[in-house]
């Protein structure tokens, strides 16, 4: 089994799902020729063409608003917002339309789309490139917010997100994009949405963490074990 980092795992998930489902298209800034600023979509435009991996104008609200229009018509768009700091113009679309269209139309229309967003600090990026907006997003009804903490989880959760019948915001902890390498199976496997991963059991302290912090917490828990504290 190949050992992959998170960027490679996400790329693999995208490639495999696009192979299976012709309704899937990717759209975003620099996702095509460039393969994304983090290279997450590397090689996908060469493989699937400019009609399925689309370099868009620089307009975040436009990207997600258009993705809604596509999803309603039966495509399965995966929109990339380049950095979480540029997600805020999309909140109007996410809050007022994407999260509500199923409810507002009483089920007549639905919006199965994924918005992928690299998020969080730790990569020496300038300001507006290091936010953690998950708390804001998690309070918006009608959308699911997913954050993987390992390459394996990234692949399995992204596949579930793509196949989900409702909108998903998939936040990718950019600090660990390339920091962890682990075995990630090829082919069909998915991790159900809405269930937490129990990393370890202890009797003294409970820590809830997600994204890049999971690795930090595991390291901390290992050190606390020396002090006879079980996390």
């Amino acid at each position, binding site marked *: 089994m190949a050992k992959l980092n998170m960027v490679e795992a996400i790329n693999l998930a995208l490639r495999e799902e696009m192979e299976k489902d012709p309704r899937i*298209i990717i759209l975003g800034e620099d996702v095509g020729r460039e393969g994304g600023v983090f290279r997450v979509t590397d090689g996908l435009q060469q493989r699937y063409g400019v*009609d399925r991996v689309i370099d*868009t*104008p620089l*307009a975040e*609200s*436009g990207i997600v*608003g*258009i*993705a*809604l*229009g*596509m*999803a*309603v*018509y*039966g*495509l399965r*768009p995966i929109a990339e917002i380049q950095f979480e700091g540029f997600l805020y*113009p999309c909140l*109007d*679309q996410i809050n*007022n*339309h994407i999260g509500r*269209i*199923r*409810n*507002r*139309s*009483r*089920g*007549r*229309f*639905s919006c199965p789309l994924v918005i992928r967003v690299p998020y969080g600090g730790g990569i020496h990026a300038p300001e507006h490139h290091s936010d953690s907006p998950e708390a804001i997003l998690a309070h918006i*009804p*009608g959308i*699911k917010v997913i954050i993987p903490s390992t390459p394996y989880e990234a692949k399995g959760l992204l596949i579930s997100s793509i196949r989900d*019948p*409702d909108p998903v915001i998939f936040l990718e902890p950019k600090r660990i994009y390339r920091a962890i390498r682990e075995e990630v199976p090829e082919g069909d496997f998915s991790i159900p949405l*809405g269930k937490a991963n129990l990393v370890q059991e202890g009797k003294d302290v409970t820590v809830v963490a997600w994204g890049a912090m999971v690795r930090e917490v595991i390291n901390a828990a290992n050190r606390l074990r020396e002090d006879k504290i079980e996390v």
Partner: protein
Amino acid sequence: MNLFEDYHPLKGKMLQILKPEGTLHPGFRPPIDDQKVFEFYQKMVFIRLADQRALMLQRQGRLGTYAPIWGQEACQLGSAIMLQKEDWVFPAFREIGATLVMGIPLRNFMLYWMGNEKGSQAPEGINVMPVSIPVGTHLLHAVGTAWAAKLKGEKIVTMAYFGDGATSKGDFHEAMNFAGVFKTPTIFFCQNNQYAISVPRSLQTASKTIAQKAIAYGFEGIQVDGNDLFAVMVVTRVAVEKARSGEGPTLIEGVTFRFGPHTTADDPTKYRTEQEVESWRPLDPLIRLRLYLERQGLWSERIEQQIVEEAKEEIDLAIKEAESIPAPEIDDIFKYVFREMTLPLKEQLEYLKSIH
């Protein structure tokens, strides 16, 4: 004749076919036969009466805040009537005309404004999105759907309705820009009704016309007399044909006037004069069409009375139906959030039921 060249926005021309006194400009014919003109007049009367009834229901406390169409009937009927069943409409919040033309039952329309979201559930096969209240945000959806159809090789057209105020929004720019770059089969129909609540058109943009904004995005824009049913139909037909044949988007500016308030929550005497309103009265789209029909011998007081009575009966029935639909149940709050209810939602639903 090439409509887009002859009426290029920078030439300062607006297409008008039917003069206010009900005669045609030389060289023009109505786009439809007189029997159809009569039918469409009848539909416009229906729309106006249904709209007036909604206002009345609001005053009686039987319907919530309402945004009346009064004055914009030709813009909406003349454009929506040119679409096919498989085409999609993306309304703003003043679109009683366009939505009824597309086949949304009046009952649903009333139900929505009565506060029941069941009213936004378009019947299967009728491609009308729910009312979009955040101004201009739905233009992007119209572009997305058009683009998706284009990618799938399906020859549909999408039509977005919005007002002059929406053209100031960022989403208008983004939607127009995407549509231009990717040549999506989208029609942007701006009903320039001169006011965005209280703010006049002159304070929305320094552009001489709204139509000319299309030039910057690399596609055609055209200004049309929005109170002239014939002109709206002709312009829309050309835009629809263009979109369907893969030639991309069009911006139509229908120049019109909202005779009523922005919504029932607003007092237009605060921001416009009676003289201004009066100056638009002779341009009323219904009066013009009636004068035309009268000249063709197809209109009389007696016929009008009959049309009105028939319309009122149908409207009464729709309201009766809407008012007989029970209020939504507690389950309805939860069951359309996702396709499968999530565990937290199930827990919240049980809790709410337990205290209700």
